[in-house]
């Protein structure tokens, strides 16, 4: 039995130690620091400042995951490098700020549809946290236009303007009798609490240096530091420590950039290092008491890994679309296919995110939508696309499957921690959902006037699961507040605790859940 407990009151003792400085970790750090708790954030990546956020698709790649490699297998790989972040603010630093709420029917899918898992809470439990977060951060949108929106306070700001691309594609939805609404965005349409308004230049995914987009550098991470929290960058946590009883986490070990190993004692430990790394860290913290990995007596740590299946629809229109303008996240949204998850052979909700700002290059850029065009034909295509391109993305619900999981491999990183391996497959109901949506998306584009719409390959957008929450300790890793069933003061925050993916972008829900977790752990 290993007992790493150290003397209380040593220099490196904190009330709350949080692993990861992204959306979830920053919310909890801000609340803890405001409550007067000695709070430490340990961030594996480098320090980031707003002045680092150069407007370039190439330079933006520095913001994506650059830590220990993650192995990926399956018919829908999770795309860890693209989806995860690297440095202060985590993936929320480069996120697109599309902030819809989960719907009421996302929380009881097992009870209502016989699929997946029920959440241990309901929408009404989370609603007050959504409302408080949106008031504090500031959201732009039109609640009344979102006819599908669950109950909630009106947005504090008017929606962002819809540019030509959104107007053109919106006509296609209207022609098919489908509704659209301005996307609820964590982007300021007007100055808000000292932060500037958006300039609509489409550089959101390179990081927003003016603070119009609510990334952690201008919201909860900044507020945490103002309230006295400490942030240590280039600090890779290698192990979570516990006492001899196994019921209490005592702190963490981490390595600094020079490879020096440190130990920090903690009254409470929060893992907020994103879905894959949280599970990896628990598995790598195996001990005599927890031979399968910390908090993993039921062998569920790492399981129920999910990612939203996604497809882009593309088209060229007769009208000029100004595709470079507006937020990267898009201009319009449609949830007409969200409320009924039972769709014949298909299962799941889905949404359309419409008219995302497009750049010429990069993975999602205009050039790579048609990899079959090259040589002398490429430049004419690019010149036409620059003026007439339109796009939208289908975001579908994934099913939590036990066999989709994160495990440890034999290879280790530079600090001696085994690397994570992931496997993620979608099954027939999800596959059918994607095919239904693709047909609908192309019909919308044809109705909007696109001459020959085409679609991109299926890819994984967002990452969930691996440490799912639930009411029953036999079938979940944490309780409804993210506290591990097996350790009284070890919490997990972020999308890893989601027992279902829903079909909306997760960052708003991550914030709301983290606020709820913070209030519970602070008593």
């Amino acid at each position, binding site marked *: 039995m290993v007992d790493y407990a150290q003397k209380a009151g040593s220099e490196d003792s904190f009330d709350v130690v949080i692993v990861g400085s992204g959306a979830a970790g920053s919310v909890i750090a801000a609340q803890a620091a405001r409550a007067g708790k000695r709070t430490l954030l340990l961030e594996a990546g480098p320090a980031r400042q707003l002045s680092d956020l150069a407007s370039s698709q190439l330079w933006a790649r520095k913001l994506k995951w650059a830590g220990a490699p993650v192995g*990926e297998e399956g018919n829908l790989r999770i795309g860890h490098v693209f989806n995860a972040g690297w440095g202060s603010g985590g993936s929320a630093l480069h996120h697109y700020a599309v902030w819809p709420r989960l719907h009421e029917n996302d929380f009881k899918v097992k009870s209502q549809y016989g699929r997946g898992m029920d959440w241990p809470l309901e929408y009404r439990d989370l609603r007050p946290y959504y409302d408080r977060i949106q008031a504090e951060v500031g959201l732009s949108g039109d609640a009344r236009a979102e006819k599908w929106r669950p109950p909630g306070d009106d947005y504090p700001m008017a929606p962002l303007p819809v540019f030509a691309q959104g107007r053109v594609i919106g006509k296609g939805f209207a022609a098919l009798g489908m509704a659209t609404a301005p996307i609820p965005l964590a982007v300021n349409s007007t100055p808000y609490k000292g932060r500037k308004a958006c300039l609509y230049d489409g550089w959101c995914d390179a990081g927003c240096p003016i603070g119009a987009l609510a990334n952690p550098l201008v919201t909860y991470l900044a507020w945490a530091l103002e309230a006295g929290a400490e942030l240590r960058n280039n600090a890779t946590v290698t192990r979570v420590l516990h006492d001899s009883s196994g019921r209490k986490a005592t702190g963490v070990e981490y390595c600094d950039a020079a490879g020096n190993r440190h130990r920090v004692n903690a009254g409470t430990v929060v893992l907020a290092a994103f879905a894959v790394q949280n599970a990896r860290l628990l598995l790598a913290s195996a001990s005599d008491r927890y031979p399968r990995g910390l908090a993993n007596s039921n062998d569920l740590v790492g399981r129920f890994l999910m990612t939203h299946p996604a497809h882009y629809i593309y088209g060229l229109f007769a009208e000029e679309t100004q595709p470079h303008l507006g937020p990267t996240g898009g201009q319009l949204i449609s949830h007409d296919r969200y409320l009924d998850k039972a769709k014949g052979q298909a299962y799941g909700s889905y949404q359309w995110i419409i008219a995302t700002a497009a750049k010429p290059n990069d993975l999602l850029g205009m050039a790579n939508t048609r990899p079959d065009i090259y040589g002398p034909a490429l430049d004419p295509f690019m010149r036409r696309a620059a003026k007439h391109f339109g796009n939208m993305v289908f975001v579908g619900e994934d099913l939590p499957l036990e066999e989709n999981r994160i495990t440890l491999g034999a290879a280790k990183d530079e600090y001696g921690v085994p690397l994570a391996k992931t496997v993620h497959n979608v099954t027939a109901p999800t596959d059918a959902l994607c095919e239904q949506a693709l047909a609908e998306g192309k019909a919308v584009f044809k109705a909007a006037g696109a001459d020959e719409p085409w679609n991109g390959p299926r890819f994984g957008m967002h990452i969930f699961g691996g440490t799912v929450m639930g009411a029953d300790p036999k079938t979940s890793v944490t309780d409804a507040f993210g506290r591990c069933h097996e350790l009284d003061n070890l919490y997990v925050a972020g999308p890893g605790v989601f027992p279902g993916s829903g079909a909306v972008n997760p960052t708003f829900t991550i914030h709301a859940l983290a606020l709820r977790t913070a209030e519970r752990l602070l008593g």
Partner: protein
Amino acid sequence: MERDRRQFLKTSGIVLSIAVAGDVLLLSPASAHAAGLPYQVLSADEVSTLEALAEALVPGAREAGVAQYIDKQLAAAPRDNLLMLKYLGVSPGDFTGFYRGGLSAAGQLAKLRFDRPWSSLDTSQASILLADMAADQAKDWNGPPASFFHFVIRSDACDVVYGTEAGFGRIDIPYMAHIEPPRAW
């Protein structure tokens, strides 16, 4: 004076930041080529194949500095790498092997099919090889999957031709930077 020179280089195309004998030079790709500055990772043969292949995929790639771009990224620390390949399931530690393997296979393909290097292929010959690579029909291909290598080199070439302020201007898209990148890459 120095500011004027930097401004000229910026507005005239791509700026490379190249370390030579402890000093950092700002050069355009053409200037770097003319100065005969050594590549840090790629061999002369690899550069020749890469430039010809990328130029056939994306006209303008050679002049835009595709070989310098890839060479510079391969020489950088993995965590500072800007290559799009990082999104595509290849670990940065394997990047050099990926490019070397693909360029070697492409060079062999040209030799087997037309008995000449890529740099000596005419337009129609290059088109035939590119089509075979895209369809994974390249005979005796011995490297990373041919269609994947084709996609990656095309993407890299698009990065340097269309992904900079000059590249945006080439197709009349206003760049509208909040913060200009310190250099093109």
